């Protein structure tokens, strides 16, 4: 600790004093990873904030706010390059807004029941361990193949699946696909729901789902996913601000400014490292965060009783 300096800053919504540099570096570290791996980082920021004693409700809402910054700059890049399917993206946004609306309602309900912290932790444990496990398995397989002298290529997805048998088909020119709007809306909705409950962008689910389920070509996947994330996280932020008053702009600014700096260096390092090693590294990090959250669910709390302000119940 650097003594003699007033490093503390009071977060007006989280209502705790925190160290400026800890949060700036937290933002920078996650920004570094997001630059290196091309992920949004929301799924790491929210648990890290919870570890740092930020109330989960504030961590989730501020996490969504923080994701807008990185997604917006990414989406802008893809927009300039033209690697973005507006039609598909807009349909995903429609689904996303519905999902986020439902998510906010569930969020308020869980908060009133006193189960929000538990559900957020459980969702994170499930998602982080699943995604981390799959990534680790996939990257180890890839490393094995390269060692065996084969070319490390991604498994080529099949041409058609059950998704293509659904009705209400629509043609998406930029993606060169002809697919039912049902899975598009459902996927957008699911991501929107997670965005409001977990404070994530959802790119880590959206990208594989678009590639494997919708067969969207990889060159437009990232741009389209970022386009949807910008709108859905913006909507989630406004909804969280109006219903729960749990968006902390001081906290968000600290994380975002750290994130902007970190992302630059992350992207540079990322180009020098090998893909499968990089993915194995991220997988282990994701698993570690998930494990830490899981342990907290099982450890006997210091005090089994807690007291909180009762939320005003809406309507009688």
């Amino acid at each position: 600790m650097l003594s003699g300096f007033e490093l503390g800053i009071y977060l007006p919504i989280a209502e705790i004093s925190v160290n400026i540099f800890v949060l700036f570096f937290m933002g920078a570290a996650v920004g570094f990873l997001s630059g290196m791996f091309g992920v949004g980082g929301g799924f790491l920021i929210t648990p890290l904030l919870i570890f740092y004693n930020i109330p989960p409700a504030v961590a989730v809402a501020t996490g969504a706010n923080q994701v807008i910054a990185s997604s917006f700059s990414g989406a802008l890049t893809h927009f300039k390059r033209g690697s973005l399917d507006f039609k598909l993206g807009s349909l995903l946004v429609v689904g996303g807004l519905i999902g986020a609306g439902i998510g906010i309602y569930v969020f308020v309900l869980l908060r009133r029941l006193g189960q929000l912290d538990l559900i957020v932790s459980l969702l994170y444990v499930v998602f982080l361990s699943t995604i981390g496990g799959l990534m680790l398995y996939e990257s180890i397989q890839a490393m094995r193949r390269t060692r065996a002298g084969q070319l490390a290529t991604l498994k080529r997805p099949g041409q058609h699946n059950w998704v293509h048998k659904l009705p209400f088909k629509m043609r998406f020119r930029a993606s060169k696909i002809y697919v039912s709007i049902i899975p598009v809306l459902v996927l957008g909705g699911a991501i929107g729901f997670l965005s409001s409950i977990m404070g994530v962008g959802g790119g880590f689910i959206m990208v594989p789902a678009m590639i494997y389920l919708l067969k969207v070509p990889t060159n437009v996947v990232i741009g389209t996913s970022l386009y949807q994330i910008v709108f859905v996280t913006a909507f989630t932020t406004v909804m969280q601000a109006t219903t729960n008053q749990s968006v902390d702009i001081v906290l968000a600014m600290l994380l975002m400014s750290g994130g902007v700096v970190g992302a630059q260096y992350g992207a540079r390092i990322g180009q020098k490292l090998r893909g499968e090693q990089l993915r194995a590294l991220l997988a282990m990090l994701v698993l570690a965060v998930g494990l830490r959250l899981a342990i907290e669910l099982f450890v006997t709390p210091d005090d089994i009783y807690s007291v909180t302000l009762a939320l005003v119940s809406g309507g009688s």
Partner: protein
Amino acid sequence: MRLASGTLLIASLLAAGAAVAQQPVPANKETVEIGLSTDTISITSGFRGTDLTVFGALDNADPLIQRQGRYDVIVILEGPPRNFVVRRKDRYFGIWINTESVTFQNIPASYSLASTRSLQDITTPKTFAQLSLGVNNIYYEPMPDGFASSEALREFTKELPRLKLKQLLYNQRVGDVQFLSSTLFRATLSLPANVPVGKHVARAYLFRNGEFLRESSTSLNIVKAGLEFRIYRAANQHSLLYGFFAVFLAVVTGWAGRLVFRKD
């Protein structure tokens, strides 16, 4: 009954005797007043808690009782009433989950007490209960729509003050009401770092020989000042604008980050 009237007779005779001997001091003429140097305290975000000094005066005191130290004063500062939920965690499949809960209504958000002596030396538990005085005697009123059993109610009613004491929002300081002269006293109360904003009420209770005589009260407004609190207020009062502003900040930061990115 006869005995009681007999005692009364003796008492009045004694009073008459005293009246002849010296200046008459009619029973229960003592008054107590307290004053605060300010009616508003503004605390900034760096607030780490402080002591609040309340001055008071005891008038028309009986000098004899005063010499024996049989006057006692208790001063409290009660925070604004709020509703609170107390929850209990239980273990299910190894995971700790909030299960039972009881909501209490109009519970003082904070409660600081200072007294001349330890509470049990001042008066009887019954008197404290009647006055709702002291952390363990506040009326913890459960919400009428609760489904909790009477057993659970008893359990949670016991836990609420314990949790509040643990958070330092409730505190009791024995011996921190001191007489500076025969009439003037000073009470030192603790304002914790997390003291709630709003209208607080300070009350002084006067006891003579363990008998409650009088109370007087004054109010104190606690407000938060500084940029952080303005942000907090904006988030609560103009939440839609605040939300749009949060999005705007993020978009600007993202865009600025891209400008920096393109330089190299």
